[in-house]
């Protein structure tokens, strides 16, 4: 299984008739393991800020989460495991595994709950595989 097929088949899959706008699996140093076609161009500082928030929960909330220049408001996640961001009616979900970050970006009409299900399910699976 290549990483790209993880993104295409598992993250960009159809759930209740909808799918994520964009998804990617990144290393925690910012390297891209695989990404979907529509994934925004991000900067290394943004990834570094996300990794730092996993280590120190609450550091991203005052400034907001940036991804590819778009600003997301940080909402309830799970400290050290999941960061969730909201932008209008869409948002992003970032799940941390041992070595990677799994990101899913969603827009209306997909709901935050559905995005979380997809991203976190894959994350839990990779966690068990020790990735």
């Amino acid at each position, binding site marked *: 299984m290549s990483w790209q097929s993880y993104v295409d088949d598992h993250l960009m899959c159809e759930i209740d008739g909808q799918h994520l706008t964009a998804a990617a699996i990144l290393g925690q140093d910012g390297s891209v393991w695989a990404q979907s076609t529509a994934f925004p161009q991000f900067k290394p500082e943004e990834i570094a800020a996300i990794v730092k928030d996993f280590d120190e929960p609450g550091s991203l*909330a*005052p400034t907001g989460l940036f991804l590819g220049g778009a600003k997301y408001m940080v909402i309830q996640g*799970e400290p050290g495991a999941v960061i969730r961001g909201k932008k*209008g009616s869409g948002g992003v979900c970032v799940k941390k595994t041992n070595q990677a970050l799994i990101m899913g970006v969603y827009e209306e009409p997909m709901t*935050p709950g559905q995005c979380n299900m997809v991203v976190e399910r894959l994350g839990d699976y990779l966690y068990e595989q020790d990735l």
Partner: protein
Amino acid sequence: MEAVVVDYGSKLLKAGIASPDQDPPCIIPTKMKRVLEEGEAAEGEGTGNVEEVMIDTVVRGFVSDWDAMEDLLHHVLYTNIGWEIGDEGHILFTEPLFTPKYLREQLVQLMFETFNVSGFYASEQAVLSLYAVGRISGCTIDIGHGKIDVAPVCEGAVHHIASKRFEVGGVDLTNLLARELQKSNPSVKLDISDVEKIKELYAKCASDQLEFEKMKNSCPAEQHTLPDGQVITIGKERYIVGEALFQPHILGLEEYGIVDQLVAGVSNVASEYHRQLLENTMLCGGTASMTGFERRFQSEANLSTSAIRPALVKPPEYMPENLARNSAWMGGAILAKVVFPQNQHVTKGEYDETGPAIVHKKCF
């Protein structure tokens, strides 16, 4: 099927079929009495008498006794609301800030496995109170029986970093009032439930700190007759209850008053939201309906150090009078109309597949 909304608090449980413009149909206390059957023994007793033990099902906003909660919900759902076993519908619960994960999971488990509901959703009381006044962003100050929550909410999502929860509430104010009344009426025996009623009848908020100091020295005393016939005088004690919220050292807490807590919390949020948050402040909860509390809050807010003055939200005219007391339930009714038809809730199928942890993924 209409959804049912349940808002359990430390003192009262509000429940009913979701109807947003009305008060909750069923408001019952959450204190329960357990009657021990013959043969079951309390600690140290072996006599088999029928004994009654008072249980607080919900302590400080969180469920503490799950068996009692199950019985209470059973009574509410099947007797008061009229569900039938085998035909349960959707249910929406409200929860206070910072609910521990295991409590949420336990509630989901109870609902799906014991009550067999078809859909479940849980939401924080702060967000729901704002929905009840027609806003999705703002600050809520929820002064309940067991806890005080100060929470900034942006577009329907609570900012947990900026929120604060205090483990004091109406119950501590009642104890304070009881102590003060005992000091000035030493010969009278006071029962806590009587003090609760006295608090609701007489407690007032002084219009500012100077007036409170004046009241401490001279205040018109009123006579009140307790149910058992004793007469007590209530003078300056009535003001101390409201004052304790603005000067927590009266309760023994080393904290700032409630307005300063709000401003401090909001400063932890990104600055572009400050105006929207502070100008849409909402007071809710039973204790917030004290006479003079809103006025005092507004005047303290005007004096506060923040550049933007906190302003209180005016509830819409179509909402019932007691909005502040039941705002979380009404917001839940509004949300129920949105969440369940759009299938954003946790269904039985999803619960069976993923287990109780699904509540963290789908309900926030």
